[in-house]
Each structure stands twice: as structure tokens, then as C-alpha cells.
């Protein structure tokens, strides 16, 4: 186990370097003058431009810029954004918000998705199964910005069940509606994955054996079939957590959540390269760590998979 974790961490290094370089390259390949618009309506003075280029190493070729940036990151310095605020402080605050949002979305998708998946899996072909299949199809097909706008209007404005927008330091209650919207598509995927795998496993030999030796249906389904059906679901949820963190851009824009998605989006639009690279690098790191965690979880779900 320990050896496996160490090997995985070593494997992560080239991936992190590659991904951050790719992001770095895309951000700094952004066309246009990086100092444009920084001095109001007039052009920036030459002294300012020179100082700006020097501070961000913009005179060096791209790989050199990247190595210098990495050197600073290694010392824990993610640079300052264009407002002079250290990116690290911004990120700490914003990741708190988006992390909360993504976690709530994951809880929502796991609870509702598993419940719907199990119900339709054990009643395959019955009414409830068809209901789940059709409703998940509908949720998957309607784009998230439409779901978000509709939910905001009907549940927030018309019925007044939830706050319509979210403040800068949101409470859990404020984030419920955005989290449901963010997790809505994943609920459908989790439900369908659980259903397919559970239905397949219910017909397998070991479930028949379990029933034949006199276990109750509840125990045969819950302990044997369900546990084996969970591996693809856990894989999906792990992958999805990273995707939710980065994919929250649309949801955060609709509900005015001051999270990482809106931060990156604003950074891209205002050409604030330092902010974008810092935020996305952390995103990639979180994604890789969550995936490692998922792979370790396999061992608990299926004893046949060992990491020794």
C-alpha cells in the first residue's frame, strides 16, 4: 500500500509539470498586449511596461518564463493578480466556496443518484425503472445553463424557496440550489451507472448462491450485488469531483457565486494570467489527488484488487 502510494505520487510529477506547462502556454500565448487597459484610457508609460515585463519575466522565452514561475511556486509564491492581491489569498477564499459547493453537489448526486439507480435496478423493466430512465435522459439533454436559469426562476424567484443569488460568504443554505443545479447532470449519470451495474450483478452467480444459502433479499442485494456495482460509480464520482470544481463556471455565473469558476473566468477575460495559471494549477492538483483516493478506495470495495 505504502509503496503503491509512493509510486503514484512519483507518476504524478510529470503529469503535473505537463498540465501546468500546457495551461501556462495557453494563458501566455493569449494574443494582445498584457499591459493593455491597465492604465485606464491612455497607453501605459514605457517605464511601467518595462517594469511589468521585468516582474513577470515576459522578455524571456516561454520555457524560461515557465521554469522561473515554477521556481516561485516551489517557494509557495503564486504571484499577485492585477489588483495587487496575492493569488494565494484569493485562492484560499474562493476554493473554500467552490469546494463547499462541489462537495454539496457530490453529496446530492450520490444520495439521489444511488437511490434512483438502486430502485430502478432492482425493479428493471417496471414503471419506476422507465420513469428513472426517461427523467435522467431529460436531465442529461437539457444544457446546464438552461436548468440553472429555470431553477433560479421557478424555485428562487417564483416560489421563493431558495435565495436567488449567493453572497460573498455563503451559508450552506444559500448554496443548496446552486449545488443541486451543478450536480443535476451527474445525478443522472450516477443513477444510470448504478442501475446498469446492479441489474447486471443481480443476475450473476454469486448473488444466486447468496440467495440459495438463505440470505434475505435485502442482504443479498445490499451486501453482495450493490457493493460490487459501486466500483464504476466511485470512479465516476471521483472523476466528477474534479470536473465539478472546474465546470462550476456556468453555475457560478448564474447564481453569482464568488468561487473559483468565476475567478478563472474573470481572469481569462481581463487577461490576468497569474491568477488563471495559479487557480488552474491547484485545480489539476486536486483532481489528481482525488483520483488517487478513488484508486485506493477500490481495494476496500473489491478485495480482489490489491495495491501491493
Amino acid at each position, binding site marked *: 500500500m505504502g509503496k503503491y502510494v509512493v509510486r*503514484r505520487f512519483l507518476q504524478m510529477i510529470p*503529469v503535473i509539470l*505537463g498540465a501546468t506547462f500546457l495551461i501556462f502556454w495557453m494563458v501566455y500565448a*493569449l494574443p494582445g498586449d498584457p499591459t493593455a487597459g491597465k492604465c485606464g484610457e491612455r497607453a501605459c508609460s514605457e517605464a511601467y511596461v518595462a517594469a511589468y515585463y521585468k516582474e513577470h519575466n515576459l522578455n524571456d522565452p516561454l520555457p524560461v518564463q515557465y521554469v522561473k514561475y515554477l521556481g516561485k511556486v516551489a517557494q509557495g509564491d503564486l504571484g499577485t493578480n492585477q489588483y495587487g492581491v496575492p493569488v494565494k489569498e484569493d485562492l484560499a477564499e474562493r476554493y473554500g466556496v467552490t469546494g463547499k459547493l462541489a462537495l454539496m453537489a457530490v453529496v446530492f448526486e450520490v444520495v439521489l443518484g444511488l437511490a434512483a439507480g438502486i430502485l430502478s435496478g432492482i425493479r428493471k423493466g417496471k414503471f419506476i425503472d422507465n420513469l428513472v430512465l426517461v427523467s435522467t435522459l431529460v436531465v442529461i439533454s437539457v*444544457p446546464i445553463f438552461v436548468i440553472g436559469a429555470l431553477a433560479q426562476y421557478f424555485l428562487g424567484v417564483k416560489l421563493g424557496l431558495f435565495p436567488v443569488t449567493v453572497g460573498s460568504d455563503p451559508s450552506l443554505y444559500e448554496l443548496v440550489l446552486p449545488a443541486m443545479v451543478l450536480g443535476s447532470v451527474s445525478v443522472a449519470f450516477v443513477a444510470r451507472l448504478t442501475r446498469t451495474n446492479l441489474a447486471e450483478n443481480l443476475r450473476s452467480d454469486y448473488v444466486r448462491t447468496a440467495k440459495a444459502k438463505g440470505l434475505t433479499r435485502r442482504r443479498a442485494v445490499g451486501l453482495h450485488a450493490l457493493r460490487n456495482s459501486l466500483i464504476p460509480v466511485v470512479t465516476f464520482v471521483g472523476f466528477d469531483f474534479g470536473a465539478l*470544481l472546474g465546470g462550476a463556471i456556468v453555475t457560478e455565473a448564474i447564481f453569482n457565486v464568488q468561487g473559483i469558476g468565476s475567478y478563472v473566468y474573470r481572469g481569462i477575460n481581463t487577461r490576468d494570467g497569474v491568477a488563471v495559471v495559479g487557480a*488552474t494549477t491547484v*485545480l489539476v492538483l486536486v483532481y489528481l489527488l482525488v*483520483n488517487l483516493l478513488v*484508486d485506493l478506495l477500490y481495494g476496500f470495495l473489491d478485495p480482489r484488487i490489491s495495491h501491493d
Partner: protein
Amino acid sequence: MTDTTETGTAVRTDGPQTDETRDLGTGGPEKARSLGADARRQLAKSPLFWISAVLITIFVLMAIWPSLFTNTNPSEAILQESRALPSSDAWFGRDIQGYDVYARTVYGARASILVGVFTTLFTVTVGGAIGVIAAYNGGWLDSLVSRIADVFFGIPFILGAILLMTSLADVLNNYFGIIFKVVLALTIFGWPSLARLMRSSVFQVMPNDYIQAARALGASPWRIIRSHIIPNAMGPMIVVATINLGVYISVEATLSFLGIGLQPPVISWGVSINDAIVGLRTTPHMLFFPSLFLSLTILAFIMLGDAVRDAFDPKTR
């Protein structure tokens, strides 16, 4: 992440072999059918397949000849009738600019269909080829390719597409140029998932006896890949690619919605939805029709994917 797929294959030792034996079993007495022929027969019986096929035909026709569906000029703005409700004159009503919503919706199909079809084509070609080569050669090449795939996989899909679209913001700004940029962005961040899928299904096919037999008979690697490995490992990829087509259409609309993909003079569902969202409370018809068409297109491709999967996987019957 490579280990996920490896453990995945290790657990599913009952992969293609059982499928084939079961297939022979069902088609037994009369005539032994191939997996492909059996899947085609199954598809022809599936209502899901026919519904999605009809929908897709309509939307593809709409993308090729929009004038088949409407005579109204989609760029003719009658400001006097801005936000008019649906009437016999304009079936779906008019939007803020006084455009005919029906005509806009019909003409908007082209962008979505082009992006969906071409992104799928490219991701399947690139991802499939890379997956086959990595799995067939194994060794250092496989590790290298897997790490490179991890790099692209580690960057969230929409975020990566947004970054690439902004860094290419100043080039190729005509209609097809922007479509090409969206396709490029989605292909660059979409190929790894298909490469992984193909890699793991090639790993399942490789140990089979017919591969060993072909190799013993002196077939070249290219011949083994072309006539034995690819036909037998394609199934899962076809299914996922069809479902992904719907996902790509949705992402294209999201990019246009965020103002990064197609821009206003161009007609697309994402742009229409973005324009219409301000009228959600007062004139929801402006939002409803483009969203409906967009959702129906995505739905059609996902249903097609479901139908194809059911046809190829005898275990779900």
C-alpha cells in the same frame, strides 16, 4: 489513472469471450450470425433507435438545407414586433431584435451539428489510433502515451476549451473558422477519454486465440490491427462516441452561452439562448424554442448511443 483501467480490465475477465459464445448460442440452430449482423438485427427492432434516427435525420436536414423548413430570412429584424408572442405570422414568436424565432432556431442547427459531428470524427480517429498503438506496442510507448493522456485529462474539459478558445481569439473569426476552433478545442481535450477506452478494450482483445493464430501465420502487425483488433475492439468506442456527440453539442452551446464560442451575427442555439435569458420572466418563448431544439438534438444522440449499446451488449437484453 492508468491503474484504473488496468484494474478495470482485471476485474472484468468475463469480457468479450462470453459475449461471443452467447451470441453463437442465440443465433445457433438456423445460422451463425456475426456480432455486427446480430447487433443490426437488434437495432432494427428497437423503437429507441428509430425515434432517435428520425430526430437525427430531421436535424441533419435542417443543418444542410435550412430553407427546406422555412422561407423567412433569419436575419430580418422587425424591431416593431420585438418580443412578440407566438402567432400565425411568426410561429415561435419574435425575439428582442424582432427576429423570427422559428427561422433562427432552424438556422441554428447547423453550428451544433457541425461541431458535434466533426468533434466526434476527430476524437474517434485521434483517440482510437493512439489507444490502439499504445495498447498494441505496450512497454515504454504505452507509459508515455498514458502520461500524455493524463496531462490533457487533468485539465477540466470546459475550462480547457475556454482557455484555448481565448488564446485563439484573434485568428479565424469567420463562421467556419470559429466552428473549426471549437472542434479543435474539444478534440484536444476530448481525445484522452476515447484513447483510454480503446486501450483497455484492445487489452481485452489481444490475448484471444485468433490474434495468436494470425501472428503465427505470419500476418503483419498492421494486418492484425486492421482486420482483427480494430473490428473486435470498436464496440465500446462506438457507443461512447455517439453519446459524446450529444455532450459536445452541449459544450458548444455552453461556450456560445458564455460568449466565447460563436458570436452574435452568427446564428446558433447557444447564442439565441444567451440573448433570450433576460426575457425568462416576461417572454419565455424566446428561451423555450432554442432550448427545446438543442435538448432534442442532444437527446437524440444519447438515445442512439443507448440503442447501439443495447444492441452490441447481449448482457443487457
